[in-house]
């Protein structure tokens, strides 16, 4: 990874709040991360951990109200996406940042032919004519592994299987050759054998196109096979961040450790009893005053209940560049 080069995407101190009848929900709390060019950043977390909301906040996909992106900077190249106009942002979406969502059935429009949906961003953002766009759309479809691409342009989404629809979504996301691809649980709705096909496709496309990818998932297995670097989220915050091998070999946050233990292995020793993380995820009402994980944490002590831990590096690199963790607990505090 070219660590010296400027990152493609640099997010600092992002904060998103939902105003609901029951009060404010602090879904994302000062999340910072960056994405280097050509890198695949995995974002892991449970539902409600803020991983999707973070990514949707970046590119203004959250309806406001109720959502309110309160603070932070999102630098894509040299522009702050939180400061530019809605029109400019629309140009960024699709052209500079592509997305693939979880459910390929609901994210494709059922009444338009697949070809039209791939051509739309090409005409809108790249200024191609319909004819040129149709040629390019066929290229894209065959690039994502759909046979007989030219004929399939005139098919409707319901004529495709789940895996094929997700391939179409990927083709749309890649249509304008974006700098960043955000994939939000793109394989969660798919079967494992189809998931394996899509993962192969993404690996392949990365080599060919070299775009930077943010891959959101709750599946640590998927992350292990595909990511360069991993960010673990819990309760609307980044609790740990590290290169993928480092994270799996040397997890620091009690949540990450517990998470790795709760998944039964397919090949390793079979445990008689699964490790559990007792309790429930936190309700994110009000700004955080304690560590979000403290109620479920085996190591929690007084400080965890009164002070939300900041991310600190556990190696020589600055926070965000190497391995960092947001936890008060250290081997020293254990003995204190």
């Amino acid at each position: 990874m070219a660590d010296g080069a400027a990152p493609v995407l640099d997010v600092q101190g992002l904060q998103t709040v939902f105003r609901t009848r029951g009060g404010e929900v602090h879904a994302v709390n000062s999340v910072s991360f960056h994405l280097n060019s050509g890198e695949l950043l995995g974002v892991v977390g449970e539902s409600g951990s803020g991983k999707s909301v973070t990514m949707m906040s970046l590119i203004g996909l959250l309806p406001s109200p109720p959502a309110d992106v309160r603070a932070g900077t999102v630098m894509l190249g040299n522009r702050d996406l939180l400061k530019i106009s809605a029109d400019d942002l629309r140009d960024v979406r699709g052209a500079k940042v592509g997305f693939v969502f979880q459910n390929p059935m609901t994210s494709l429009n059922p009444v338009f032919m697949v070809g039209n949906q791939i051509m739309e961003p090409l005409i809108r953002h790249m200024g191609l004519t319909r004819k040129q766009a149709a040629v390019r759309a066929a290229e894209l479809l065959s690039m994502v592994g759909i046979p007989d691409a030219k004929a399939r342009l005139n098919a409707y989404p319901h004529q495709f299987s789940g895996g094929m629809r997700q391939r179409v979504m990927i083709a749309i996301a890649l249509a304008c050759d974006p700098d960043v691809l955000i994939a939000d649980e793109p394989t969660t709705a798919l079967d494992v054998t189809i998931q394996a096909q899509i993962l192969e496709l993404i690996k392949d496309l990365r080599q060919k196109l070299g775009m930077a990818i943010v891959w959101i998932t709750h599946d640590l297995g998927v992350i292990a096979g595909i990511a360069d670097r991993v960010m673990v989220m819990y309760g609307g915050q980044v609790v740990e961040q590290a290169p993928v091998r480092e994270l799996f070999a040397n997890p620091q946050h009690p949540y990450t450790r517990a998470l790795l233990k709760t998944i039964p292995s397919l090949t390793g020793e079979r445990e008689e009893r699964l490790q559990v993380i007792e309790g429930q995820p936190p309700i994110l009402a009000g700004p955080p005053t304690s560590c979000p994980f403290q109620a479920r944490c085996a190591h929690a002590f007084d400080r965890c209940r009164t002070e939300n831990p900041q991310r600190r590096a556990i190696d020589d690199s600055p926070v965000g560049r190497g391995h960092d963790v947001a936890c008060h607990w250290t081997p020293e505090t254990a003995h204190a």
Partner: protein
Amino acid sequence: MLDAAPKAQTPLVQVRGLKMYFPIYSGLLRRHTGNVKAVDGISFDIMAGETLGLVGESGCGKSTVGRALLRLYEITGGHVVINGIDVATLGTEELRRARPQMQMVFQDPQASLNPRMSLADIIGEPLDEHTDWDKPRKLARIYELMDAVGLNRRFANRFPHEFSGGQRQRIGIARALALNPRFIVCDEPIAALDVSIQAQVVNLLEDLQQKFGLTYLFISHDLSMVRHIADRVAVMYLGRIAELSPRDALYARPLHPYAEALLSAVPEPDPALAQTRQRIILQGDVPSPANPPQGCNFCTRCPRVFDLCRQVEPDLIQVEPGRFVACHLYPDTKTAGSTGDPEAKEHTQQGESQ
């Protein structure tokens, strides 16, 4: 190879040649033009106290099997003997009387709980239907069940929306336990839950099995969780069983090419292993069950397909003790039918090999 964890060797559930077809009507006159063969002649046994894992991809018919076993569908053909009673042929009133011993835990705890009923009403509904107990006795039973699944008694008058996904699934489990069933079909009970909550529910299911001597059919697409909970595992593909093996044997060395590909497709949560592992990537999609291929139903995607596969449908035969495979790669050396019952199989083999 011995069956790894035979808790008991008497089958509680015996399924023979189960078929579940859904008719297709088309044209102006809505004529019956074909069938979706969701389950196409499968046979297996579930031993008392055992957990049989049923795995496969979406659309392979695994949920249909679970529902057909409990006669939630009018099945097209075959027999389902549960605890000595063939539920496939029971009349309405007899079926109703047989229901208490077989229950189900559903996938989506949100959709399977009535939002207008309180927790006590939901858990108590089976008691209303099947017992003539008075109110205090019912309430005592409801509390007992809530204790058993780890729900606080104070929650009895709350409504489903006040609970998290994991807690809702506990409510569904308590309801399934209300009538002291012997057999529970768990249809993807953890698929809708977060990883950290999944383990809680699976541990609960295991505890309850120990405590009440339950027999489970555990339907799931999560192969690593099935490895944890099941004693034996049946792998389904397109309405048929491809392989039925003891858990350890299957995961160590899958015999059917589909079982092998399915296991190899599961992402390994270990970056070092993930890089070195050779994956089998299946090409294409699952064919439509309305129009399954001729011969072996896996022949369109099988990496080891040969001519015979496209012509003759393989039977599920025992190729090693306790291991049943439907594949022509394993020639039928020991003449046998396909009952799926390890014991019966051994007897017939002994009889026939003379």
